[in-house]
């Protein structure tokens, strides 16, 4: 037999060393690993955490080493006589309630799920969240009030945001100076974005010469348009009157408008808002303002309940 062959060094080993050696069950490695993890997290977040993690790791490393070396330091007495070999009936009567394989399977799945979640959740958040935050619009300076004669529409083309190139940031609004009401200047400022699916509408009137001016918001092009009867969209034939109310075609509401303010004698566009319907005209118009919504979404009537949450 192969065991009869004497191998060098074998004789010096204690009895029983040829049998596979299994260390006793211990929980310390888990606590040690948790300490290391805390140490690494602390290196990124806060040195206090790192210190706590280091202490935990050291303490449990010490305990683990003690545990693992106990048999060497205090050699155990002869093991108890092996139990009588079990018959097959015994095995069937006493099945292992929680076998090691099930524990390993479950912990593999659990740790895998935890790692997967740690990796995917931030990535998904990065993919989705930026689309819904920071949607504030910049204020746009349209230049001196003198460029906006009373009761006359002026098409203002401007850059909507400073950090956007003109290829994507160029917008247009129809600005009408309504004169003064209650000692306050009144302006009608209508967005050119069609309330159907967002094509650019055009004013129906006689356009004059375009004027380029420089403001704090960059290049602004102003074009006076005489005797505007309304606005039309080239895409699907949506038509609006001079107040932006829908008169024909597929749009579901009036054209959006802009809030405005006057700063240092300049007209400044503020937040855009959505409008269901404008009652009255010019400075006497009554308008209910809604949070700006995408084109094609109803803001009033029963259909508004299709869109309960506007991000």
């Amino acid at each position, binding site marked *: 037999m192969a065991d009869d062959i004497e191998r060098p060094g074998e004789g010096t080993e204690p009895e029983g060393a040829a049998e596979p050696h299994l260390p006793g069950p211990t929980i310390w490695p888990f606590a040690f690993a948790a300490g290391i993890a805390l140490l690494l997290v602390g290196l990124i977040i806060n040195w206090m955490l790192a210190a706590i993690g280091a202490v935990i790791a050291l303490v449990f490393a010490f305990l683990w080493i003690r545990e693992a070396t106990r048999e060497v330091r205090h050699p155990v007495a002869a093991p108890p006589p092996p139990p009588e070999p079990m018959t097959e009936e015994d095995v069937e009567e006493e099945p292992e309630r929680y076998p090691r394989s099930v524990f390993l399977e479950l912990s593999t799945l659990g740790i895998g799920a935890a790692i997967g979640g740690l990796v995917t959740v931030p990535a998904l958040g990065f993919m989705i969240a930026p689309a819904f935050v920071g949607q504030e619009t910049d204020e746009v300076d349209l230049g001196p009030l003198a460029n906006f004669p009373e009761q006359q529409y002026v098409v203002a083309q401007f850059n909507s945001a400073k950090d956007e190139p003109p*290829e*994507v940031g160029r917008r247009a609004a129809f600005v009408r100076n309504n004169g003064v009401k209650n000692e306050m200047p009144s302006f009608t400022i209508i967005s050119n974005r069609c309330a*159907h699916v967002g094509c650019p509408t055009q004013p129906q009137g006689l356009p004059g010469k375009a004027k380029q001016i420089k403001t704090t918001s960059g290049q602004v092009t102003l074009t006076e348009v005489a005797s505007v009867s309304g606005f039309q969209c080239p895409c699907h034939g949506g038509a609006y009157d001079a107040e932006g109310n829908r008169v024909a075609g597929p749009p579901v509401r009036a054209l959006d408008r802009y809030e405005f303010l006057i700063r240092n004698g300049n007209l400044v566009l503020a937040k855009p808002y959505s409008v269901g319907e404008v009652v009255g005209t010019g400075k006497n118009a009554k308008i209910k303002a809604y949070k700006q919504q*995408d084109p094609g979404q109803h803001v009033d009537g029963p259909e508004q309940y299709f869109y309960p949450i506007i991000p």
Partner: protein
Amino acid sequence: MARTKSKRRQQLEQMVMMPLDWLEERSGLVGATKYFLFRKVPAETNWFHTLGSATLTAFLVQAVTGVILAMYYKPSPEEAYASIQHITNDLTLGWLVRGMHRWGASVFIILLFLHMGRVFLFGAYKYPRELNWLIGAILLVTALFEGLTGYLLPWDQTAYWATVVAININANAPILGPFIGDFLRGGAEIGNETLARFYSLHMLVIPGGLFALIGLHLYLVIRLGVTAPPWSRAAAGYDFVENGSRPMREGLVDPRPRGHGSMGTPVRTEGGS
């Protein structure tokens, strides 16, 4: 019986077969390829059955030309249009590759619909192939989404306004619509993010999904076999073997030689011959 081969021929065959045998022994790939390509098909298949392969070919052309175009295209609002002009006008044969990709997109969609029509009219969506019809339907929608995202990339007026309209139509879906709109735009307005994410979807996400779905689709085609046309003898219920070793695969093709029974007196054989 067997004709003895000349020594030279034997050597030649060995030279060809040795690497193949080496590969087969270690991977089984040769057998898998044979299983994939040399399948039994019903006797009365016709040219309509090639529409699926034609669609696959169109997709592969799109994949290859798309990879080449991605080497020159610049997905930023300032450069996108100029880079497309550069591809079309300056680069050698750029006009050809871009044209193949642009027109091939339409060819792909048209072939998809023709293939779907063939499957529908031949009744090939019925048991046991319902799942493959479903996968095909998802493939169709995915391919249309690929078309939508690709349409923005030239970044001209048509592309821009068509995408404005398409996103706003999506944004009008009840309840979830506004979220879909914001997700597709990457914000409240179409801008830098929109072009970049459409590019990413168009060249990474959706093609990956298409490859995976096509893999599933082909797996089911190979597992279930090809349907006989509705006017064929097999579809009429003749020559139908119900318990072969692999009943699904062999039952749907016609493994037996012709000439038993006759057209005038149909013989429905039960349980094999």
